[in-house]
């Protein structure tokens, strides 16, 4: 395993070269600045990169999108991407929110420790430039995930109710989600979600939010981190991510050219081992 410092040095030289060669107009990453505060920064001069750091985990995909949205023509932004950042950017490219040509992704591996905090099964980007890939963690091995996703539905409904009722509708989950881009958002009002009540309508608010990300969620965990009530929001996504993987052999964010099975490939690719119910055999053994 490389030390953190070695990874930072490697990143600095790689990114400096990108700037010097004109491959990128700017680099977007984390910097340790005044008073030791770490925050995202746009580096435009190679020298500025001396303050570059790689920790802690700070989702950069959404701010990168915002930067590129207002960037002038010909601007190319190099983004220091963890696995989840890269996958989020891939999803944003698929949804026409980011111009792939204006983006240079520089992949950084996460530590095994980070992977176990995030319950990440893929703690590295597909294009890995810095560091070594750590082993992923199967989220379904986590007792917390099992507690909420496995076993008797009725018991689990009670468990989910207890945590979801804590929602104060701060919209932190949505605002921090790298994939959520709509304005206005369905969650903000009628007829989808009733306004002005707390706890919010659990079903419509949380299930609509979760479902909108069904085939795009990259399980970066930004929503969960933003939640003041500590609701395990990513766990909801795991249920659908598993269904996608098992039923459709698809995982979000892996390949710009891979199309989501929810929108494509009808008839040609019937679901694997998944009988399609009809009226005659419905509900009969």
């Amino acid at each position, binding site marked *: 395993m490389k030390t953190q410092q070695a990874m930072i040095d490697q990143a600095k030289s790689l990114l400096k070269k990108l700037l010097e060669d004109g491959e990128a107009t700017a680099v977007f990453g984390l910097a340790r600045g005044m008073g030791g505060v770490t925050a995202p920064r746009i580096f435009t001069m190679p020298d500025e990169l001396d303050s570059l750091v790689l920790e802690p985990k700070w989702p950069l995909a959404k701010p990168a999108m915002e930067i590129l949205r207002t960037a002038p023509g010909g601007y190319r932004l190099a983004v220091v991407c963890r696995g989840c950042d890269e996958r989020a950017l891939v999803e944003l490219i698929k949804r026409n929110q980011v111009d792939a040509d204006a983006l240079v992704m520089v992949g950084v591996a996460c530590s095994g420790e980070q992977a176990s905090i995030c319950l990440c099964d893929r703690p590295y980007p597909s294009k890995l430039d810095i560091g070594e890939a750590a082993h992923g963690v199967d989220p379904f091995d986590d007792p917390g995930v099992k507690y909420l996703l496995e076993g008797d539905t009725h018991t689990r409904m009670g468990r989910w109710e207890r945590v979801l009722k804590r929602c104060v509708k701060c919209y932190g989950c949505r605002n921090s989600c790298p994939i959520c881009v709509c304005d206005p958002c369905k969650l903000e009002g009628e007829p*989808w979600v009733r306004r002005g009540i707390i706890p919010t309508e659990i079903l419509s608010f949380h299930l609509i939010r979760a479902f909108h990300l069904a085939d795009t969620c990259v399980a970066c965990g930004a929503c969960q981190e933003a939640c003041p009530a500590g609701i395990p929001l990513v766990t909801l996504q795991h249920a659908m991510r598993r269904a996608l993987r098992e039923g459709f052999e698809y995982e979000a964010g892996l390949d710009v050219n891979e199309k989501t099975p929810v929108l494509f490939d009808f008839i040609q690719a019937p679901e694997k081992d998944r009988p399609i*119910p009809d009226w005659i055999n419905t509900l009969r053994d």
Partner: protein
Amino acid sequence: MAVEVSNNHKQQKATERTPRILVFACKWCGLIGADGAGRKREPLPPNFRVIPVECVGSVEPDAVIRAFADGMDGVIVMGCHLGGCRFNDANHAAFKRLELLRALLEGVGIGRDRLLVTFGTAHEGHQFTDVLRNFTNLIAKKESLDTSWTSSRARMI
């Protein structure tokens, strides 16, 4: 120290009420099936309401979620057989979406079987009654969705 406490204002489980079932039926097959059932004048449990849609493709998953939020105990989406859709493969698209939604419903403990997505053709109308009766039986065996899951709109009025 161990204190035995329970949430004292957790809503009582809804008393034995007949389950509420909402049916989204496509105009070309599901609705004709319902019509066929009606023509036979076969008695059916009165606890279902049909919303005719042009195609099951237009049944937003969000609308299904909304239905559960509004106090439905079960939702049926009825479309044409795959390959028999008037709108090319809209029914297949709907199936895939709703299949994912079922995974989500299962995840949060509502249970995937509360949402039934099923396909048939108009001439299988006699099956409509079977589907409805079986589904009603299945839902009746389950407890009602806890009222705190459903919106206060359903509770209030």
